[in-house]
């Protein structure tokens, strides 16, 4: 099985199948990245598409200096930042997780509680926690994305986990079944 970096180099050499393979690997993670952070599903789809198109357009400039995953999430993160800036200018606080769409019909009670608990976290800590838990990025990758030291990532992650845990325990702990 070829690594992401090998696929990207193959794509640079003219293999469209290589990029199709990469898209298949990261379609769901990238869409989930935007979907958990944006209330508008259609906008999340657009930004996910824009992220892959950006990789497509920048193919010739890609250099395997870092993991392709870091490179891809870096582009996605930049797209998200641009979206936040645009929405902030329009005074539409879309990123605010608490202002997300009402829970979907398929959301479980635990999912709803989690969404509401994440809403109450500090933005920087919330972002670190989500990148770690849902995107499964390493500390170093998160540090590279947010341009902060690794120790900062670790301390933010620790505080975010404790805070989220406390929130869930105090507010909805009984229903979520989190132990005291």
């Amino acid at each position, binding site marked *: 099985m070829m690594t992401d970096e090998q696929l990207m180099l193959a794509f640079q050499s003219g293999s*469209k199948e290589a990029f199709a393979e990469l898209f298949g690997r990261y379609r769901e993670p990238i869409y989930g990245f935007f979907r958990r952070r944006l209330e508008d*599903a259609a906008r999340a789809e657009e930004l996910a598409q824009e992220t892959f198109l950006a990789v497509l357009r920048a193919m*010739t400039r890609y250099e395997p*200096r870092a993991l392709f995953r870091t490179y891809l999430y870096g582009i996605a993160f930049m797209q998200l930042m641009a979206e936040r800036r645009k929405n902030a200018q329009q005074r539409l606080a879309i990123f605010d997780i608490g202002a997300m769409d009402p829970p979907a019909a398929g959301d479980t009670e*635990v999912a709803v509680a989690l969404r509401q608990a994440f809403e109450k976290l500090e933005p920087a800590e919330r972002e670190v926690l989500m990148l770690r838990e849902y995107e499964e990025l390493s500390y170093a990758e998160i540090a590279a994305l947010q341009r902060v030291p690794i120790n900062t990532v670790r301390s933010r*992650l620790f505080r975010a986990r404790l805070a989220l845990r406390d929130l869930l325990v105090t507010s909805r702990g009984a229903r979520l079944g989190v132990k005291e």
Partner: protein
Amino acid sequence: MSSSLHFIEQEELMAYLDCELPTERAAEVGAHLEQCAECQTWAVESRAFSGQLLAWQVEPAPKSLTEHMTAAIAGAELKPQGSGDSSPIRRFALPNWVWATAGGVFLLLLVAAAAIPNLLRSREAANTRASLNTYSQQRAQEYLPPLRPLGAYSGASPSWGAKAGPLPEMANQELMNTANMAKAQGGAGAPGVTAPPVTGPMIVRTASLKLLTKDFDKTRSAIEEVVQRHQGYSAQLVAGSEPNGARTFSANFRVPADQLDAVIAEIKPLGHVEQESQGAEEVTEQYADLAARLSNARRTEQTVLDLLQKRTGELSDVLAVEQELARVREQIESMEAQLKNLQGRVTYATLRVELREEYKAELAMTPPSIGGRLRNAVVEGYRNAVDSLVGLVLFLLNVGPFLLLWALILFLPARYLWRKLRAATKPQ
């Protein structure tokens, strides 16, 4: 839950569970975890908590995303690396750092283009000054030989002519011709001052000495004795003293030019030489010119006299001739005086001697009071503070606009390079 577990912090245990600890530290924490029930409980809870977070799942990516990307991938124009790029714009597309470097070089060239002409002008001016200084030194060496022992010069004509370069020789030859021509024209038989033929450069020499002596009276007498012994005389002399101060003596001596070096050599040991200088002015051309004009004037005088003796006419004509004769004789007298003065300046050099007594303040003088010293210190401090403040303001006014301009120009390239550098060195 406690905030710390023995020697293992919770944050470190969290990093261990995330597999983010260095190998050695992870082994230590793992060993501790096997033995510590409290940590085991915390680890189980943490893993369970992470598992619960996964309950927040999002719906699968829409099919439209796959369809759009499939179409985009199919329509993408792939250009394998190394293949030619037909687009004229893409062909010249360069990495950003290349553009940044080119921009920096361009700015440097711009600065150089603005600065180099000024530097060249400064260097040219410096070269010109250096050339002039060198030429002046050469001229000075030609006419002002180093001090020689007494008796090195012999005769009234100084031996400097032997050292004269091409320019003095040429000038001397020309002046000789002029003088001979004037002589041939009838100046030889004229009465009055006769200009001796120019046999070498005519140099007016001057020298200055500043001496410091402990025995003021004895040194002053010795100086005057030396001057007299060398057939010199005092042209001007001033002596004085200040209350509670040192005595001073200054004099302009005229000594035979060929004795000047001997006089200086004898005077210098009489005290501590604080300053010594010598100068030489060539007046050969001036002298020859004056001599030629004098000869012509005498010839004119002789012609007018002949006219007055041989021709007869009306009274008005005789008066006019007399007036012309008076004018010519006035010119002759003036030129004779100038010639005599010039000869005197060449024959006798001017030596200025300034003598100062070495004076030590008496111990009985009242030292400044402490209050006065404090007041002086305050005034001096205030003056220094104001001076430094004014200097700073002047510096900012002088350099500020320049620095501001270049800061504005270089800000964006510097920020770009800094970001590139930081991005290149940050941990992956």
